[in-house]
């Protein structure tokens, strides 16, 4: 399986011009603008693209909208980790010669709902066996495993609140982050937060308060991938795919085999480590999809960074900085730099956030992150779930 290591590189990565409330942009125009920005980042044109991978849209829809006729398509659309899986599939497609230049696009009018798709049928398993019980989207379903984890391992809301505070600290260093100091005034909830602020925020769905939940936004992002040989010709340093994994574990969260373990995370993570020939100790920087505070905790455990059940105390560990400031485990200055763009919690979350996690991994590996740049990032992991821990995608990326 190690034959994919270092064979394909990401040479372009970008978001849409803006993220947040974009009622003037439809789902497909978000795909298109992200594609434009990622191709500009790579110094390529749309005419170079012969492979198209997207989620939240049928590949034909996006191809027609862009005016291209790709010879390789992949419409894997399994939620937020679809783009990690697309990268994995693009690696295989480029290695097989199915395409030379793969464009991965994401666009979602998650807040404004301009051409947003509607939910499933009342006859689907979800329509019959979950929806009738007043399920109200992700806050009422992604939360389902949490209290079982609390019950079995003693994890607490205070533990989770530290993840929100740490992630906000990163957002305050990112000019694009919706809840960061640059974009949102303190009286509107922006800027620094403490774990106590998280616990004091409005209850959405116990055990999640408002600040345990991601933002809801419009936006998009895109990636361009080419072979290792071709990647050397670009102005910016290529970001190589060392390892990748994917999995489908269940669909409805009520049917999750073990509510304290994301089987998909384990399957995808093992495949990524195996193909990269690396382990958790080799990862310098993590982008762990954070739809809610609990989501990255599960990743840290199931991807082997901490033993099962110890994620809570791990993330709640703090130290004091030179000016008396609190340094969170996963925040700036902490020894487990995670979600350095400000995460789904404080940067942007369109509904399928995984694209943004990959973009931040690319930028950290290129050293483009300015105030929030983590020193010495040579290997980064971008990992996410799709649905409610239902599917998973893991990428191990490197700058050499």
């Amino acid at each position, binding site marked *: 399986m190690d034959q994919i290591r270092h064979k394909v590189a990401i040479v372009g990565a970008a978001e849409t011009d803006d993220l947040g409330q974009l009622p003037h942009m439809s789902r497909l125009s978000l795909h298109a603008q992200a594609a434009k920005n990622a191709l500009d980042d790579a110094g390529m044109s749309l005419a170079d693209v012969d492979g198209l991978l997207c989620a939240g849209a049928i590949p034909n829809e996006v191809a027609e909208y862009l005016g291209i006729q790709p010879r390789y398509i992949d419409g894997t659309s399994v939620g937020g980790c679809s783009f990690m899986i697309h990268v994995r599939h693009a690696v295989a497609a480029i290695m097989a010669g199915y395409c030379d230049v793969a464009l991965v696009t994401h666009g979602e009018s998650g807040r404004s709902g301009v051409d947003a798709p509607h939910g499933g049928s009342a*006859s689907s*398993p979800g329509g*019959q066996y979950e929806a*009738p019980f*007043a399920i109200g989207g992700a*806050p009422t379903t992604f939360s389902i495993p*949490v*209290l079982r984890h609390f019950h079995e391992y003693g994890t607490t809301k205070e533990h989770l609140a530290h993840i929100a505070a740490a992630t906000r600290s990163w957002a305050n260093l990112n000019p694009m982050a919706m809840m960061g100091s640059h974009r949102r005034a303190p009286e509107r909830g922006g800027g620094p937060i403490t774990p106590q602020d998280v616990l004091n925020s409005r209850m959405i769905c116990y055990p999640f308060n408002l600040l345990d939940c991601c933002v809801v936004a419009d936006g998009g992002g895109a990636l361009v991938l080419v072979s290792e040989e071709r990647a050397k010709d670009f102005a910016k340093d290529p970001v190589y795919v060392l390892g990748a994994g994917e999995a489908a574990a269940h669909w409805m969260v009520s049917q999750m085999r073990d509510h304290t373990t994301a089987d998909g995370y384990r399957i995808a993570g093992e495949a990524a480590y195996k193909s990269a020939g690396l382990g958790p100790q080799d990862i310098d920087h993590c982008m762990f999809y954070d739809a809610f505070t609990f989501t990255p905790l599960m990743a840290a455990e199931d991807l082997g960074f901490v033993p099962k059940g110890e994620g809570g105390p791990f993330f709640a560990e703090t130290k004091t900085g030179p000016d008396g400031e609190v340094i969170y485990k996963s925040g700036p200055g902490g020894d487990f730099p995670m979600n350095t763009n400000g995460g789904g919690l404080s940067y942007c979350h369109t509904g399928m956030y995984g694209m943004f996690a990959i973009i931040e991994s690319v930028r950290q590996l290129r050293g483009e992150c300015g105030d929030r740049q983590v020193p010495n990032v040579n290997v980064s992991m971008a990992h996410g779930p799709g649905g409610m821990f239902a599917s998973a995608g893991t990428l191990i990326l490197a700058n050499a």
Partner: protein
Amino acid sequence: MADYAGRLPVATPESQPYWDGLKEHKLMLPTCDDCGPHFYPRPFCPTPDCFSWDIKWTQASGKGKVHTFVISHQPIPPYNSEDNPPPYVIAVIELEEGPRLMSNLIIDDPYTTTVDMDVEIVFDDVTDEVTLPKFKPV
């Protein structure tokens, strides 16, 4: 009951016996002779090394435990009226027979719910046609 505001399931041919059972206030589970009952209803046994299509419907006791739960503060129908306001409990119930299913817990104070609490089924006739399996503490 005609003005029930919540989302209603629509059965498929394969799940019709399940919903018909609930209407008669019976919790019926599709059951494989070798592997036992499963949820949600499929016309085969979803144990990969079995995959038998010889399925019988058996009646469950209606007893179980709260495997995990949340307390939703969202005004989602039918929990969106003055008579029936949030918060409300969404719970994964582990049936005595083994399978788990999503449901609501009918409980005076949602914050008294605990993981592994013993519960039993309540047949909630939400319309003339549809009965939902809900649970209450024993």
